[in-house]
């Protein structure tokens, strides 16, 4: 197989995988999964959220190790490891914004996180903290050219 054919085959396989995952997610009646399965190998192993063609996988990084029980500990700083993908695999889009708020409380975080691009669609978000227990909503903005896609995901802090 020549290189061009291999590339086409690779893209077809990835797109096929993407469709299979999308169908599986639809079958579950949800667009989020707890396992990171949407991105290419070695992507973040946290939670995957999708909107349109945008696939965003994120996981929590704590200074002292792994997340326990899947819940984010309140009043502790943490970082996010984010991987962006699209139908073609690793996305060339930028993570333009990462933030969080408490919809029921009508306020956000006390800290303004920063985003550091790490290459290959991967980003590190520093300075996060959920200072109160309860339901928070992570909010991401992914920019591809002039197009901005907003993705949100509810998480629990306690």
């Amino acid at each position, binding site marked *: 197989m020549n290189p061009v054919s291999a590339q086409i085959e690779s893209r077809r396989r990835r797109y096929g995988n993407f469709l299979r995952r999308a169908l599986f997610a639809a079958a579950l009646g949800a667009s989020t999964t707890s396992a990171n399965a949407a991105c290419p190998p070695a992507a973040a192993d946290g939670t995957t959220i999708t909107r349109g063609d945008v696939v965003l996988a994120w996981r929590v990084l704590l200074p002292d190790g792994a997340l326990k029980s899947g819940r984010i500990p*309140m009043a502790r700083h943490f970082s996010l490891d984010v991987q962006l993908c699209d139908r073609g695999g690793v996305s060339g889009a930028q993570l333009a914004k990462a933030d969080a708020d408490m919809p*029921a409380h009508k306020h956000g975080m006390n800290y*303004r996180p920063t985003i550091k691009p790490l290459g290959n669609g991967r980003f590190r978000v520093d300075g996060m903290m959920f*200072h109160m227990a309860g339901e928070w909503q992570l909010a991401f903005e992914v920019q591809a050219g002039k197009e901005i896609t907003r993705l949100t995901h509810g998480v629990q802090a306690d």
Partner: protein
Amino acid sequence: MAFRRTEHHRGRRVLATLLFLLAPAAAAEPDRFSASELERIASHGPWPTAWMRDPGNRVSANPAAVHLGYRLFFEPRLSANGRVACATCHDPARGFQDGRATARGLTDGVRNTPGLFDVRQQRWFGWDGGHDNLWSASLRPILDQGEMGGSAGRTAHVLRGSAALACHYRQAFGKAPTAGDSDLLVNVAKAIASWQETLLSPPAPFDHFRDALERKDVAAAAAYPAAARRGLKIFLGRGQCATCHAGPNFTNGEFGDIGVPFFIKPAGVDPGRQGGIKRLLANPWNLLGAYNDDATGGNTTGTKFVRPEHRNFGEFKVPTLRNLTLTAPYMHNGSLATLRDVVRHYSDLDEDRLHADGERILRPLNLSEAENADLVAFLESLSPATPLPPPVVPAPVPACRAP
């Protein structure tokens, strides 16, 4: 046979008590706890938590610095009139508070003096969080013209005038206290901080109850008063108090507007956290500055990422709920004299006082008098059951002991 019957009855009694404490029908009973509540009760301990030295203070846990800090904490000659020490407002006999609504140093202040027990656990210092480290927070009152009105020169003079103090300074910092030393005041503040870090409150009745539940020690858990158990249930549930007063120290370490007036007599307002962030970022002794001893910068996250918001105006620090019986009166302005007043504040909360863009879950709790009393009983159970002994005097280091 009689022995067996006694054991059998004791077993049934234990089982009955266990079911009483852990019953699944918790919601219907005022002092029974669901599995979820038990999990949340467990999150308020264990107590004490593991002590860690302050990486931003190179003399944290240094015995010479701890002794020096202890001596300077009680030293009135650091003040302009020679009569005001740190201990003037932070009285050891009152949980390191002064019992006054607002502090009085050289002049009258506008905020309530915070207690100092377990101060090592804090992220922000002062009601407005204007400091991100304990030594910086300890330096401010020494220089503040309304509190102690001191100076580097005065401090150096006090240190040089005492062979024991000068010796401990040298032992801690490796140099003599000279008047022209720009680091002197920061070093003194770091020594005072290192002593304050040793102020730890002992387990309270709540902690014994929490630990007994963890051990499933029914007999020990049953010793916790029923009123406190009912109050705890309100604290965790209807009161939503644990949303902010979380963890072993019963605080998230952050800030909130709970409708306590921020007007200052005779005129003016206390901007609270909004002013605190401004002071923090302008402070040369914050953790982003040259005096932070943590070479990794791992302790700078809060200061680096703090986000000023309009809602910060009138927000004040969420205080710990430990040792409250020692530290009346309450709130940032000392406006509430008793714990009953504090509970009434939340029960009858005046929503008109809350920020339009502030916290949306604050609502009047509308507690009955009996429920108020139960919540007070719970809060009281977070304080030591018996009077605390005076703080342990740190010993002088051998190199500085008089021959």
